[in-house]
């Protein structure tokens, strides 16, 4: 039984030392090179922190193999990594750093943002060789329940939430995926998801678990889909675990009418509901490929249910999210009680897949990870997803929608109030309201101010929010309509401007 992802890397290295583990557009690392690079990071982190353990260590990530070496290195030192995209606005990076309380970061070849000025920066590509035995010693003290990483998601209070996940949950995920999907050492993953997005966790650790390979796809390839498909072929990619939004892009741009990938065996998608017509496009053009719908928020370590697509779907049908993995239990609850068969309830998850909680946010953690109301005899945590679901007669779970203001846009989880808070904080904005146009997939921001100034507002929003959270439409109103009780009339706004 493995206790840490360091053991996973060591085991893979024993069997596959000279095989390519992780590659990107410029470089590639064999398993032994990955181990060596991670060992350097582990030793440097250990020294810089004077041997402290359990600390948050941000990693300035790029679309490169070096980032993954930094992750393993931080983990081996007995600390946990926090992948951070240096292209995010400084304010957001500062907010995230404040949550972590970090004093040290590892840089995977990026320009260091201004918000990192007070931190010690270790450049992962410039570190001296390190003593493997010493690093093995550090790693041997890791408990499987120790935190491995913290990934930030949008928070409705305006501050991003850091989801803290253990070694155990990630190791369990790899075992579940192995059982369900039969990856092996011939599997070549085409990594689409950025490393600060937990879809990428599946690529990295399933690669290591099976001794496969992973090629990191440059983000810009999704702007030139023909080159993207050529790259998949050149790298002999046979397995995709992608955000559903990435699949939608290839379909929207009619990619497969011109070019097809030749090595694909399995395509798995998650992050948001994939429209059936997009799945049909992929199925029609890639008849030999197995498709899998995966479901689950970051708080349950990637995914808690899966549905292996076993038929075609008509355009108006919803693709089920399927059944739970074997280490997971799903409860559909309403007011703390299970719903009757066929009724809609909040999807709640139990099992070893649950995250440890939100970093340095005990109250938030207590609200989301609470005692199972159906168990009175012993402590058992469940995670309340805020997603609504229904169990269909065939035993498959169906995702119905959200119980709150969270949306999925371009594969990212976004709390609309967080956008409203950024806009409302501007002194010259009197009121604002953010709605999602699900048909056109656009975030629409209404704002009320004395004079219209879209450009000034856009500049302020760009300084505060990551690009995927920026509204796609700005609508200035002299007065945002209100309901009789004085609340912003979101229904009227939707009717007048979106429908």
């Amino acid at each position, binding site marked *: 039984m493995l206790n840490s992802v360091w053991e996973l890397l060591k085991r893979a290295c024993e069997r596959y030392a000279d095989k390519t583990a992780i590659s990107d557009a410029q470089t590639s690392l064999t398993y032994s090179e990955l181990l060596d690079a991670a060992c350097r990071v582990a030793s440097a982190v250990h020294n810089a922190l004077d041997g402290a353990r359990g600390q948050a260590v941000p990693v300035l990530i790029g679309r490169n193999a070096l980032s993954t070496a930094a992750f393993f290195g931080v983990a081996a030192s007995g600390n946990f990594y926090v992948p951070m995209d240096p292209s995010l606005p400084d304010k957001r990076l500062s907010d995230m750093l404040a949550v972590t309380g970090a004093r040290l970061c590892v840089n995977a070849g990026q320009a260091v943002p201004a918000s990192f000025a007070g931190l010690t920066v270790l450049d992962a590509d410039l570190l001296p060789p390190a003593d493997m035995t010493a690093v093995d010693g550090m790693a041997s003290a890791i408990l499987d329940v120790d935190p491995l990483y913290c990934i930030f998601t949008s928070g409705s209070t305006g501050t991003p939430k850091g989801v803290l996940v253990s070694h155990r949950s990630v190791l369990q995920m790899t075992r579940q995926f192995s059982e369900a999907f039969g990856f092996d050492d011939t599997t070549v993953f085409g990594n689409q998801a950025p490393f600060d997005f937990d879809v990428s966790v599946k690529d990295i650790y399933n690669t290591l678990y099976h001794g496969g390979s992973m090629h990191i796809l440059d*983000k*810009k390839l*999704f*702007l*030139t*889909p*023909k080159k993207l498909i050529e790259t998949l072929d050149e790298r002999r990619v046979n397995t995709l675990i992608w955000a559903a*939004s*990435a699949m*939608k*892009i290839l379909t*929207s*741009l*009619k*990619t497969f*009418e*011109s*070019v097809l990938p030749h090595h694909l065996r399995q395509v798995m998608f998650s992050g948001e509901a994939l429209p059936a017509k997009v799945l049909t496009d992929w199925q029609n053009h890639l008849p030999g490929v197995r498709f899998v719908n995966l479901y689950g928020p970051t708080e349950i370590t990637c995914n808690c249910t899966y549905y292996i697509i076993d038929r075609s779907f008509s355009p108006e049908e919803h693709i089920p999210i399927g059944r739970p993995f074997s280490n997971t239990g799903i409860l559909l609850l309403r007011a703390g009680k299970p719903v009757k068969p066929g009724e809609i309830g909040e999807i709640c998850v139990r099992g070893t897949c649950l995250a440890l909680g939100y970093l340095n946010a005990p109250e938030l953690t207590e609200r989301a990870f609470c005692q199972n109301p159906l168990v009175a005899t012993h402590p058992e945590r469940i995670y309340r997803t805020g997603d609504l679901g229904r169990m269909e007669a065939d035993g498959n779970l169906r995702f119905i929608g959200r119980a709150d203001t969270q949306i999925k846009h*371009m594969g990212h989880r976004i709390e609309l109030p967080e956008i409203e808070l950024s806009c409302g904080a501007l002194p010259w904005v009197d009121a604002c309201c953010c709605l999602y146009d699900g048909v056109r*997939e656009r975030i629409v921001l209404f704002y009320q101010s004395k004079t219209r100034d*879209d450009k000034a507002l*856009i500049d302020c*929003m*760009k300084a505060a929010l990551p*690009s*995927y959270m*920026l*509204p*796609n*439409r*700005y609508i200035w109103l002299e007065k945002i309509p209100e309901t009789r009780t004085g609340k912003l009339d979101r229904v009227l706004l939707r009717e007048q401007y979106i429908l």
Partner: protein
Amino acid sequence: MDELLDILSECCPDIDFEVENTLIDDGILSSIDLVTIVGELNDAYDISISVDDLTSENFNSAESILDLVLRLRDE
């Protein structure tokens, strides 16, 4: 050109299309921006932009996009 700039700005209000000339090379456009732009251009100019047209040469700037639109409209 003004009409095209209006369409582009409506699709991506946070990008200054009069200035940017590395829209693809520097990843200034997101893939969802590109989908929106292609859809709007196809509708507005009654053209059909194919995946073969989606290159940095054609989409790096408003000028190169205009060249592509004019070329496809003449075909």
